[in-house]
């Protein structure tokens, strides 16, 4: 069964955290704290605020190079936030300070080791007692490949340009292999592998540890993991997708996909495409959430939200554009829009606060109560794990004898 929306189904809400917010001038808002971006307290504040609002999970953006205003190449701008901390470590740093909210750091498949990321997210799941996920991302920036010096990435204009298709397909295929390895490693220990049998002196039953023997075009990985199976069995795998190639990654390997429809018809078309790919991948019976991504400028009155967006655009010196639809208005209007978009088959949304310290509290203290009034959002955390919050069962281990 695919996770599907119905007129009354509660929505899932995630919040995407990125620096001081998603608008490039967000750091200049009086409420913003750009000097605290590299402190643990800043991230703890944001995640705690999201948890107060009963949000399903937060995502942490990341990248293996400085942020840039150009899509696929670096810039030398000094008027925007540059620099960030490792997302897995930020998530782990806030895990002991929170109890219910899911923690989903971004990981870059193109340049990192699936073995390391598998044990890191498994450990995040142990540290958070079952609240870990990951958001897998490819990296097509030639300058970031040069940070590693192991492969050369040709320059392309955009992911969806015709010339780029071979590269994009290759990077996403590699990402799919990467997730496959990460998932097999999570399962490489059966849940009851640790036996501590004093009589025989055996700490583990080694028959319950498994080599994963993955052989792919870009890497091969033997296994088993050094880290026992995480509490959720399989932490939640997520990916952002804008076109057919990444939709396929979502359909093949993810539990949650983020998509960027600008209206309900687009949402419906995207969901249909992902569901079709899901069937092709033989996963039609598995739950897969498709969440709509939106950038949000939220204020108590629409004029205020517009004025704030205009002020930020003036500071930035250019109109704000995004891959995702940009919403500017009140929590009530946003609730209307989310309900409308959900008609297209989305099971929830990942909201990108334009200004973290302004729009996140508007989500938790404005939008959430409004959705609760409408019967579309939880009144209390109903589960202890992220899979539980997303209505995903704890999966059986693929290596365990039936």
């Amino acid at each position, binding site marked *: 069964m695919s996770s599907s929306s119905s007129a009354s189904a509660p929505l899932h809400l995630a919040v995407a955290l990125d620096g001081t917010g998603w608008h490039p001038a967000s750091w200049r808002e009086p409420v913003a704290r750009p000097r605290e971006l590299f402190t643990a307290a800043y991230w703890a504040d944001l995640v705690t605020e999201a948890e107060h609002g009963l949000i399903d999970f937060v995502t942490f953006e990341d990248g293996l190079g400085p942020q840039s205003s150009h899509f696929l190449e670096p810039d030398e701008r000094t*008027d925007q936030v*540059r620099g960030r901390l490792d997302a897995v470590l*930020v998530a782990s740093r806030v895990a002991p300070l929170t109890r219910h909210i899911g923690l989903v750091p971004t990981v870059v498949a193109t340049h990192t080791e699936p073995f390391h990321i598998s044990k890191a997210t498994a450990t995040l799941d142990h540290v958070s007692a079952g609240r870990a996920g990951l958001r897998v991302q490819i990296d097509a920036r030639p300058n*970031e490949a040069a940070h590693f010096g192991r492969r050369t990435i040709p320059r392309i204009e955009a992911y969806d340009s015709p010339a780029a298709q071979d590269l994009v397909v290759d990077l996403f295929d590699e990402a799919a292999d990467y997730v496959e390895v990460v998932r097999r490693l999570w399962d490489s220990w059966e849940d009851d592998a640790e036996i501590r049998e004093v009589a025989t002196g055996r700490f583990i*039953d080694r028959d319950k540890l498994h080599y994963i023997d993955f052989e792919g075009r870009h890497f091969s*990985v033997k296994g088993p993991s050094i880290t026992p199976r995480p509490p959720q069995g399989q932490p939640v795998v997520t990916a952002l997708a804008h076109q057919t190639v990444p939709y396929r990654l979502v359909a093949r390997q993810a539990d949650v996909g983020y998509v960027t429809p600008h209206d309900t018809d687009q949402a419906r078309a995207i969901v249909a495409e992902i569901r079709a790919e899901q069937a092709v991948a033989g996963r039609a019976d598995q739950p897969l959430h498709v969440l709509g991504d939106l950038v949000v400028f939220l204020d108590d009155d629409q004029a205020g939200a517009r004025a704030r967006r205009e002020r930020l655009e003036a500071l930035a010196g250019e109109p704000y554009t995004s891959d995702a639809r940009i919403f500017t208005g009140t929590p009530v209007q946003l609730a209307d829009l989310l309900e409308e978009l959900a008609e297209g088959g989305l099971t929830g949304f990942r909201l990108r606060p334009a200004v973290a310290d302004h729009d996140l509290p508007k989500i938790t203290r404005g939008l959430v109560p409004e959705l609760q009034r409408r019967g579309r959002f939880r009144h209390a955390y109903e589960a202890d794990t992220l899979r539980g919050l997303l209505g995903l069962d704890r999966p059986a281990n693929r290596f365990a004898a039936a």
Partner: protein
Amino acid sequence: MSKRQKQIHLAAHFPGVNNTTVWSDPAAGSHIEFSSFAHFAKTAERAKFDFLFLAEGLRLREQGGKIYDLDVVGRPDTFTVLAALAAVTDRLGLTGTINSTFNEPYEVARQFASLDHLSGGRSAWNVVTSWDAFTGENFRRGGFLPQEERYSRAEEFLTTANELFDSWYGDEILADQATGTFLRDAKAGAFVHRGRHFDIHGRFNVPRSPQGRPVIFQAGDSDEGREFAASSADAIFSRYATLKEGQAFYTDVKARLAKYGRAHDQLLILPAATFVLGDTDEEAAELAREVRRAQVSGATALKHLEFVWNRDLSSYDPDGPLPDIDPNVSAEHISRGRAQVRMYRDPLAIAREWRELAAANKWSIRDLVIETGNRQNFVGAPATVARTINEFVQADAGDGFILVPHITPGGLDVFADKVVPLLQEQGVFRADYEGTTLRDHLGLTHPDEARTDRVAS
């Protein structure tokens, strides 16, 4: 009383995946759950220890072609645990072992710089190297590195990581909301490294962290390893915790510092040390014997004998005599993923020696492994252990010790409660933290103090 007494440094090694750790003890807890790590770290911080130490292994050990199952198996990811521990501690240093062979400098530098930010300046990196294809089977590169190149790569890895840490100076982030200048320098983080092992360039994306660079540990014991430490490390995690061996190692390594233009106190020597405490020395000695028997079960004794014999000895009785047959010196080694077996360079001679020892003392296989294996370094009543540790440090067998308890996670508690107060009373161990960073605790200078590389702009 002419010379001022040295101050002792103390650290806590989370119990590891060898037979030092007694998982069969009823008090033994989880090696994976975060609550164990939090308990251990909080105990160390309560006792004002310098830092906590996590080891790492990137492939589960095998013996005779099967995953070794007699010791603790499995551990969490080093970085991820340390970041979480930063949330439940305030001053304790957080030292992680990270392999330089199966990682890339850009990613590791990001992780350590991030950990240093997230802990307010408490991170340290124990740089280790490996070359084995066995571990390489878990990684993109595979077993790519000839053994003789592992230190050359490790050195270049550390050099490159330092270049990345140093690519930010610490004053680039202006974040002036009025003028709209976030970065003072458009090229903040720019780096170029062209070397034999790494040819990389671009921009590092983590601003300078509180400590500038993580504190650098080195653990290798070979001549190359000692040179690497003398040239590049802030501290050594050594194996020599006895008085004589400790002094010899200390003298050897400290003597190597001069040729790198480094002062005597710029490299700390911290041997790993085990301990058993009792109310009296006699009680502790008895307890130590029990711990050794728990550490070396009959099954473990046979497996340890196989390290030397290099053949399957499972048909032997661990309570019986040593095997008559000689070690197998021709085949590939029976044990994989374990550094210890490299210590046995002449198995035939060791086998002869052990047979003689066993015959002379009427030892069974298990007795022999217990007696020839690693005994606890400090055994006694708290006053005895405190006095011995202090004597060793004042006699330059080390600058302190990295203590390895045998019980997870509570094995450090009694040391914290009984021994530390005695060291504090003697004025040789801090009564409270004086600084906030690990560099402060270890008395190391901040790398910024020595920076002269900035071009005036």
